């Protein structure tokens, strides 16, 4: 079980959190300006790298804040992201 460093509550068990996927996928500011391909890419595709990925995590059974971490998908090594509001 992973130990997730919540920036507000400290390290807590993974079961208190929801992993909400890759953090680099930002909702386009003006969706209608997106091409069909770009919109489909935003909706359906993830990077899914072997290595470090920046993710949103939701501390649903804790402070209910959303924050980002960098997680290595091979070793599960986690590096906190300094400014969670970014």
């Amino acid at each position, binding site marked *: *079980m992973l*130990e997730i460093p919540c920036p507000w509550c400290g390290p807590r068990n993974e079961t208190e959190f929801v992993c909400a996927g890759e953090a680099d996928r930002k*909702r386009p500011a003006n969706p*209608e300006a997106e091409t*069909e391909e770009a*919109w489909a890419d935003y909706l359906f595709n993830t990077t899914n790298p072997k290595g470090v990925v920046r993710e*949103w995590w*939701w501390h649903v059974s804790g402070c209910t804040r959303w924050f980002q971490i960098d997680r290595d998908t091979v070793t*599960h090594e986690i590096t906190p992201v300094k400014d969670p509001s970014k």
Partner: protein
Amino acid sequence: MTRLANGGVIDRQRPLRFTFNGKRYQGYEGDTLASALVANDVLIVGRSFKYHRPRGLLTCGPEEPNALVQLVSDGDQPNLRATEIPLREDLEARSVNCWPSAKFDLRAINSVLAPLFPAGFYYKTFMAGRWDFYSRFIRQAAGLGHSPKERDQGRYERVNHHADVLIVGAGPSGIQAARVSAETGHDVMVLDMQESPGGHLLFHPRQIDGRAASDWVSREVGELQARENVTWLQSTTATGYYDHNMVIAVQHEPAESWLKERLWHIRASKVVIATGAVERPLIFPGNDRPGVMLADAAVRYIRRFAAVPGKRVLIYTNNSTPYAHLETFKTAGIEIQSILDLRKSPSEAELSLARNSEVPVIVDARITGVQGRSGVKGVTYQNGAGTKTVRCDFVCHSGGWNPLIHLYSHAGGRSRFEQASAAFVPGERAQGAYPIGGANGTFSLAEGLKEATDVANTLFCESVGNSAWSTPATPATEDEVAYRIDQIWPEKGLKGKAFVDFQNDVTTADIALAVRENFQSIEHVKRYTTAGMAVDQGKIGNPNVIGLVSRELGEEQSSVGTTTFRPPFAPVSFGAIGGSERGPLIIPARTTPMTAWNIENGAAMDEAGANFRRPFFFPRPGEVMEDAVAREAAAVRTSCGIYDGSPLGTFELQGPDTGELLNRLYTNRFDNLPVGRGRFGLMLREDGRLFDDGVTFRVDQNRYLMSCGTGAAGPVYAHIDRLLQTEWTDLNVYLVNVSAAWATMCVCGPLARVVLGKLESDIALDPTFQFLDFRDGALEGINVRVARVSYTGELSFEVNVARRSALKLWKILMEAGKEFDITPVGSETSGVLRIEKGFISPGHEGDNITNPFDAGMGWIVDMTKSDFIGKRSLLRDIKLGGERQHVVGLLPDDERAPVADGSALLPAQESNSRSGFQGHVTAACFSPTLKRTIALALLKDGQNRHGEKVVISGLENSCVATVTEPAFYDPKGERMRA
């Protein structure tokens, strides 16, 4: 009875009677089942898995492959190892995998037929024909033990624990590591599998600091246990090492008598693995005969339990360890025939031990056969001088040592083959795992203690950043015989069965066959031969399998590599995994203030969304479900019903940007909603599919109250919260889930206004109180918010009240409605009323493809808004065009036709344009109001096919139906606005 008069930890004043395979025996307090069997000269403890050969005890510990028993007297638990079961008065156990008995097993015919069962036998034989035919016979013969029939009476619990350092194993190096760590002031936890600490010191007479090792153990452990920063658990097995230094351990029979097992989830900064090593068997024909035992195991039975496995022993080895056991055998009065050493030249130190005990050593010797079927009578061996047979009644063998690197491997650590010790030892580290002592391939006591001191020291210099404190000294030990081993494999094409994996009945011939058939990867050989699988997990046999494979392939053992060790190290009971979460506590049901009332009033309860259990219907005496639903529906349509809507999700949203947020969340507009009014909203996912619907009220200029479906409450909350915190951080809105703060009761039906009107209230129920208005006030002195919302299509008042006052108000309403026969309504009836009205339910008609236009809800989608969640994807749907499935109504020609949800729709007449699957039924019922079967469905191009006929094809029934508008009752909605 072969028990020594003195010695061992057994309490001779406390005899215990027990039953094994139907026979009564006697042992003592302090025995294990295995040691008591040894003391009672019980040689055959089980049958092997495949050939059903008689088997005896091979080991004295948790690695035991043969003595798997069914513990009848304690909850009928299957497949426990006799070596791990503490003896109890009236204990009853049985061998598994034998029929009719362990002594005489009919399936031993498999042994005669062995040439027919080579490795891969199942794959080769039974895949050619019909597996389902063969499987009946195979299943009967397969498996070990049987599941208990009774509910487990034991109680279990699960606890979390944090430590700076977790030390697994309280042998000499574990104890020393604990000592050094504890002195630094860090939080230390020590787990040990055995009942008492000491590891192998419990079984071998060693000296530490010039005194008996047992004195050192009790002094050190006593001091450590008294320290506040040390948590010490005996009888606790670490079963797995998971991510981020989480170790899971099972504590057996903790001091609290009411508890059977406790599962520990331990998170430690560092984990010191001091799990020791287990002895490895030698491979020779007949090495599985009862009476052939590992040398170290024999010593353990003698020294700890004073149980003697035989009178005349022959020792067979490829390494130095058995030479140190000679004294023990002598003292126990055992005649040592000789030592057969596979090596050509044992060391002078080894030979001098043999000379001291007057034991002849025969070098360069190989055993070629063991005489005796159900016990050893003699051994035939070969050396330079030819073939000889010696008489003996048991054989002790040692093929070297396997470091227990399982936990290290679970953590992700690699192993490497070390030539000098002929063992797989820890290699590249993962996580915070630090192996020491036997687990690290360090088999010498002195070196193990030094390693423990050094590793613990390094760990804390690292974390404290301070080396000023004085490290406790490593205790001194007496001289040891240096460990030497020479792995000498049996000749190729060995005659007779020589076992490599005892539990799975894998022989040298099976390994050779697998390699001949071109299985080259050790992982493939493992799966093909089953070596190292199941309960055993390769604790004993793995290095031998790897050695043989490397020999067959002509490669180095280091390049063959090991298979992956997977948790658990030892089997874990389901009871321990479940802990206290069993029965109704697995998923505790959520309740509303009316749940108890509902049950008292005869509700048939049903699982609803979000772990709620709610009334399904309220049967009166003699009523079946259809009767009750018809009566409840009639009450709502003609007089008055009452429905507990408390499980619905309720969110309060506050802030100046709330209107804007709602505009973006819903397909329609909310910023222009007047205060005091509610509006029905439809929420989509970003891909344009139906997500949720519900009514949102504007309580104040910047304050809204949103309701959503029961099952959708969690996902909707996550959806809004995510957008507010990650995407639209500029919007000034607070979101609070108030679902559990409110209770809701719906008074519905043409007489709803009359029933409410009977209560003393400041809320006027006059015609100005219109559909989708709400009013705050009091009913009989209870503060309420009454809203005109309808999920039934009838005149309806939704009374919202603080949870604590809900039951009181419910009872008041039931009393007030008595004269109009107010009827409590269950969720089944509510579903029927919905289908009659054709209200879309995202959980039914939303199938992850349906968009609002497909559902006939285009009227609520405001495409003139600049953006809302799902709009971009709807534009894509429109642009792509093509035929889509639409929500329609279906009226079967046979008005009483049974129609099941999910039934397929087929064309009534096949044509070029219409053939095959046309859609499916999303919800169907018998309508008590219309007195006929009705259904909602998703149908290809359905909006353009009203009036057409389709076939509803269910698993059991088919019928023809007419396609209609999806609204069967009051399609204009006049009744709910009344």
